[in-house]
């Protein structure tokens, strides 16, 4: 067993980065259009006018970049939320944030606001929906500035339920063409056609990662409990607020560009914690990288499993994640 913490952490991060590169290359190679691995570099650097080059840079590469940004954001948001609420079941999905976002998007689609404001209004609506739900959940479960974790989870689950019912209501009265867009959103997909949005998602996710590191020591203190953290000189109320805000922004962003992709934020930090313990100095970065790897793998599976038909990636993460969720529920060591 490796004793020293820094060397253990460097090892983990190195393994994750190698894995990320490997998974990205595999994802680049597979798809309905057969492109051989041995030709990839040749195509990427020398054959700019071939159709293979277009497939790689215009279809597969943006998806991988988006998978990195969204998977990373969701993994990080999950690690932040679980850390700050000291509960392994908290994540953007269980807190109802994803539900709020899909409600916002469904409303925009069915009201045909895109024809007035342009396509950009879709991610904006998802983002606003996520943020509104977050504040709603936060203030409903905060009593005099103190968040009660049980009421937070219950409020989240209920809001999630209400918004999914409303989405179904909208779907049942929507026109067939609107229905398709809504389903795309509710199930989550990395097929985002707008490259500018992908770039924004990438930048914001990396900024979120950097900012969250200002809170890693305080999150470590919070793991010991509210009073214990206060006694170690941690301003718990302000830490809660800021971390909740960062997680909301990351989730809102992810949902707005890729729709609802459940369980990444739940499963990833949980698996990492088994190896690292509740040390957020490593947990945050490792969750980000693992989230990215997990989502790129899931998206690759979604693309090729019944090729040429493409499954929504949320279906794959939901199945894998749901199984691990049940496993986590039954684990003895439920507490962080």
């Amino acid at each position: 067993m490796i004793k020293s913490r820094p060397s253990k952490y460097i090892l983990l991060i190195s393994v994750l980065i190698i894995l990320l590169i490997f998974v990205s290359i595999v994802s680049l190679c597979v798809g309905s259009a057969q492109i051989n691995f041995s030709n990839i570099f040749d195509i990427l650097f020398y054959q700019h006018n071939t159709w293979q080059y277009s497939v790689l840079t215009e279809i597969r590469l943006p998806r991988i970049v988006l998978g990195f940004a969204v998977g990373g954001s969701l993994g990080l948001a999950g690690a932040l939320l679980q850390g700050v609420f000291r509960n392994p079941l908290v994540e953007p999905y269980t807190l109802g944030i994803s539900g709020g976002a899909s409600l916002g998007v469904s409303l925009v689609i069915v009201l045909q606001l895109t024809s007035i404001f342009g396509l950009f209004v879709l991610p904006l609506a998802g983002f606003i929906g996520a943020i509104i739900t977050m504040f709603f959940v936060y203030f409903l479960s905060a009593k005099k500035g103190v968040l009660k974790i049980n009421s937070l989870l219950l409020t989240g689950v209920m809001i999630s339920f209400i918004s999914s019912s409303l989405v179904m209501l909208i779907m049942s009265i929507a026109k067939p063409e609107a229905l398709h867009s809504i389903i795309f959103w509710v199930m989550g997909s990395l097929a985002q056609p707008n490259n500018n949005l992908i770039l924004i998602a990438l930048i914001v996710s990396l900024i979120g990662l950097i900012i969250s590191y200002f809170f890693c020591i305080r999150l470590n203190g919070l793991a010991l409990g509210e009073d214990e953290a206060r006694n170690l000189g941690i301003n718990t109320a302000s830490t809660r607020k800021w971390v909740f805000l960062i997680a909301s922004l990351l989730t809102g962003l992810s949902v707005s560009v890729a729709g609802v992709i459940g369980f990444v934020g739940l499963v990833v930090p949980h698996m990492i914690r088994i190896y690292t313990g509740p040390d957020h100095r490593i947990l945050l970065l490792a969750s980000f990288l693992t989230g990215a790897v997990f989502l790129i793998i899931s998206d690759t599976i979604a693309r090729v499993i019944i090729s040429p038909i493409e499954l929504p990636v949320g279906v794959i993460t939901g199945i894998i994640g749901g199984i691990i969720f049940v496993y986590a529920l039954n684990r003895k060591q439920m507490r962080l």
Partner: protein
Amino acid sequence: MLSVMDINNLFAGYGNKNILKDINISINNGDILGIIGPNGSGKTTLLKTACGIIKPTAGEVVIESKNLYSLSVKEIARKVAVVTQSIEPVMITVLEYVVMGRMPYYKKFQFFESKEDYRLAEKFMQLTDTLRIKDQYMSEISGGERQLAQVARALVQQPLILLLDEPTSHLDITHQIKILDLIRRLNKELNLTVVMVLHDLNLAAEYCTKLTMLKDGKIHLTDTPDQVLTYKTIEDVYDTIVIVEKNPLSGKPFIIPVTEENKQLTKS
């Protein structure tokens, strides 16, 4: 005598309800002050107010001639260390936990502990007899060991004053004596000022240099153990009949409970 902490005309509680009313205590350098009183008399509230977790509605706590509530949470943590009744059983090693006591001293962008932090942690773990379990997880050690690790963590904060909330509850007699012996040894060797909430009056009599007895959120009496622990005050505050004898070894008061069946015998 040098005063370490002064609590002046303090009113505090939860929400708008005051639990503590007009509390005045002066804690001197080298004191072991015991806070005793019946359940619900405000002992833990007093401790939480003295470490800044609860803000008072009136009055002040003065430490090093500064008002405690004008200090940041971090500054308070460098002056006041607290051992709570229980902590979350987290999956971190005892050494990792103890070294977290250095958090109040971290610089703004410091992510890792320094060598000096580890040196201090090991020094105090030696003193508290926790060095031998340094690689075990906090979630897997016994309650008594966890309490000792908490004391080590508190010492690593290098505080002016150490507060303990019922350090002996949930512990068997071996660990009760072990932890209180340790507190007294730290008090003598490091000249550490200690305030602790205690339920057990005999342990309070034995280990504290001064006792504050609370009743309904007010101070009934603050004095040496033999002045505070008389059958009269105990009957007044706890509404219970006891016999107070002298401990043959220490000469400190020793309280013997009187059961209902034996009440007749005390009259004669």
